[in-house]
């Protein structure tokens, strides 16, 4: 693994997907993968194949829905979009994450 890259933390992929869909609206799997890599400046090592089981899981939980559509390259692709329940879930998880990150920060840099 090249230096400076790190694996996506267990459990954070869901949050990243939900946030990306909220920001950009409906996206297909490839679009999501590209976007996540752009946002993270290629620091995050995304195993793109794992995106699909994650999307299925989110869909089963009712947080996202999907339907077939046309991609920019006129390819048939499945587009995912956030549901109302997904938005609520995103708010809750964001809050949780911020609280957790704050705690981690205080733990790691107690002097500041």
């Amino acid at each position, binding site marked *: 693994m090249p230096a400076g890259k790190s694996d996506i933390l267990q459990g954070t992929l869901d949050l990243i997907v939900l946030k990306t869909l909220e920001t950009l609206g409906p996206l297909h799997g490839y679009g999501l993968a590209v976007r996540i890599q752009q946002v993270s400046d290629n620091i995050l090592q995304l*195993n793109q*194949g794992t995106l*699909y089981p994650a999307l299925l899981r989110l869909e089963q939980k009712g947080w996202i829905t999907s339907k077939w559509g046309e991609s920019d390259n006129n390819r048939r692709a499945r587009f995912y979009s956030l549901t109302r329940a997904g938005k609520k879930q995103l708010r809750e998880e964001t809050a949780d994450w911020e609280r957790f990150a704050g705690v981690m920060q205080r733990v790691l840099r107690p002097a500041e």
Partner: protein
Amino acid sequence: MLRSLLSRLFATLLPQFGERRLNQEIEGHLSELRARQSAQGLGPEDARLAARREFGPVEPAKELYRDHARFRALENVFRDLRFAIRQSRKNPGFTVAAVLSLALGIGANTALFSFVNSILLRQLPVPNANRLVLLKSAREPIRLSYDQLNELNRQATELAGLSGSFALDVSANFGDHPQWISAELVTGQYFHTLQIKPQRGRLLTQRDLDDSAGSPVCVISDRLWQSQFQGAPDVIGRSIRLNTRPYKIIGVAERGVAGSDLQRPADLQIPATRLVDYMPAFVGIPHFDWKSRLSLFASIARLSPHASRASAATQLTRLNRDYLKSKKKDKAADVELADGSAGIQGFWKLGKPASILLGVSLLVLLIACANLATLLLSRMSARSSEFALRLAIGGSRRRILAQVLVESALLAVFGTAAGITVAYAIEQVLLSFLNRTAPAIHQLHVALDGNVLVFVAAISGICILLFGTAPALQAARMTPLGSSPGNTRAGAALRKAFVVAQIALSFVVVLAAGLLVGTLRNLKTLDLGYHPDEIAAIDIRPASGGYTGAQANQFYVRVVDRVRTLPGVKAAATAFGINFAGRFNMKLDPQAGTGAPLEVNMFGVNPGYFNTFGARILAGRDFNASDASDKTQSYIITEHLAKRYFHDRNPIGRYLLYEGRKLPVIGVVSDIRDQGPRETSPDTVYQDAGQLLSSSLMVYVRCDGPCAPLLPTLRMAVRNVDPNTPILAMHTVQTEIEGAFSSEQVLGLLSTLFAVLAMLLVAAGIYGVLSYTLTRRTREVGIRIALGASAKDIVALFASEAAAMIVLGTLIGVPAALAAVTVLKSQLFGVPPDDPKTLAACIGCILAVILLACIVPIRRALRIAPQQALRIE
């Protein structure tokens, strides 16, 4: 979440839709990646590889996706099932044999259980049926008189109610012609004791019993209300004619309630105080108080809330003794109380035979399971390379175990499905056989209810455990190198143990069958002293036509006179005995200074009876018409009894001693078994039926040759005497006798079937084990033959293996069989349970079958050519 559950289930059952979507998505993703790489100047092949690198491993991603999309465990079961079905198709002989033996085993068990269930396990549909008790003495149900019941009921504080009922058939006129209805004469406590509620109107109380003289009333069942009155709401207060007398309907009982005997549903309850409508012999006899003299009523009681069976029995015994003492009777047996939740079981006596057959069929099923276990174990060994390969390439042990279990379960499911069909067939055949002689209103019914379904499920589950466990354990111990040597040895030992168990169990089944068949043969070949197919028995009751007292006897005389004039009829007479149940036992006191009391049958007959049954008067004379009106009673005894009781003295003019009375003997007749073959004692005392009080007699007609073709003519002739007095039943005595021992016939027939099945299974079992040994040792045998082993040596090689199993099986089986068949004792006739001849025949039979099964594989062993044997593998 329900939606995801459903979508996962859907995806499990139809995985192709989800697969297509997954493939399209991933293919699309890869093509976008490829397009981008191409745009950056890579060649097609490089672009493809770069895209794959960026995407990451495709198959693991798909597997992860599938784990979420479907239920993998369920999917595996489906896969195992498909594999199992393919396997069973590949090996149809094995599958058919396994399914067939299971089907016969499960089918027989289910059918017999449904009989046991209907006969022994049902409860009366009344509240708190488990608080009901039956009054018995020396384990036999006792019958009490009307006064006795009421007196005991009044005093017994341990009982919440004590009631009596007497089952009888009455003739009812709903339209233009009379028909028979199954009814009960009941005491005033009947409905109170059983806690039956009315659906309409009200039910009988003691007051109705006391007032019954003027305006008789009755209660009808829901079934009768629906079938005869079409559920008319104004049925209460309507009048129906029972035995030609008008009765007012005062109520309809709850739906589902049909009297106190589940095997003989009753549609009508009549006050016991109307007895004389049905037994007119008691009319006009001065000073005959039937209420205290006739011990007629089967008794059922309900315990008080605080009482126990023991405390109530103690109290009843004491009260009964006091009651009888007040009536100047000092003989009073202890009263026992037995479980009454299943009601009075007075009609069909099939409980014991059905339980015995259920036991035997369970043994057969055990044998079938043991047999299947050996077959499956052999197959496991044959497939050990398949399993070893699967383990070697990373298949999990759990999946192999699951595979083996699924295969066993599949066999059980097919076996059960086929078994239910077999059960239905057996049930129908048995029912039609048992119901042959029963009048239409008393047909035996067997219901397939929840209990039976639970039993089927339980029994097929137990089967899977019995024959599936051993192969599963074997599978669990597989290693990638094939089964370990220890495992193979354990497997072989297990197979042999199963064969030993089969042999041992088959001894029990075959010995039981031998004894029961012996019983049937003894019954069939017994010399009755007459030809039962040449005599017809007509059951007709003058009371149903409204005849009372002397009119009833006149009616019988008219019937007999009419029948005698028919061509083809040689003789006719009336006598006691309905379905051979009309006999009494009595104990004659010993002659002065000689021996113990003599137990004899007592039977009432009218003049002409002996001639009808072909019995010869050996000394003295037959009864004649004047005897009936004679004050001094007279008796005729059988030759056998004459010899036993009077020895060499001439019995004519001497007396039988009975309860302090002297009964004069006027004649001696040759021995006939007119009570059917079951009656062991040919010691019978005949009394003139005209002197006895009986309201229903049987008309016996002897024909010139077989009677069956003449039955329609007889029926017409009897009907012409009085169309308003219907015939209840008419058969040849042959049919009557067969009807009286249907249970012996069923026992003999089914147990033979089970014995044959058991022996076939045992033969198949031992054949299978030996052939398997032979297959494994073909090389060894070939080498031995090549080195000069003689045929004797080869036979010895296998014979020792077989002999060990046979000897062990016999040593366990014979004592077990002898112990087990003691339960048959009450069902046997003319053979003791430890009859040495039957035992010898049974051992010979099993050993012969086993030896036959051994011969085939051993002969094959002898034919092994060394060349061919060495080339194996």
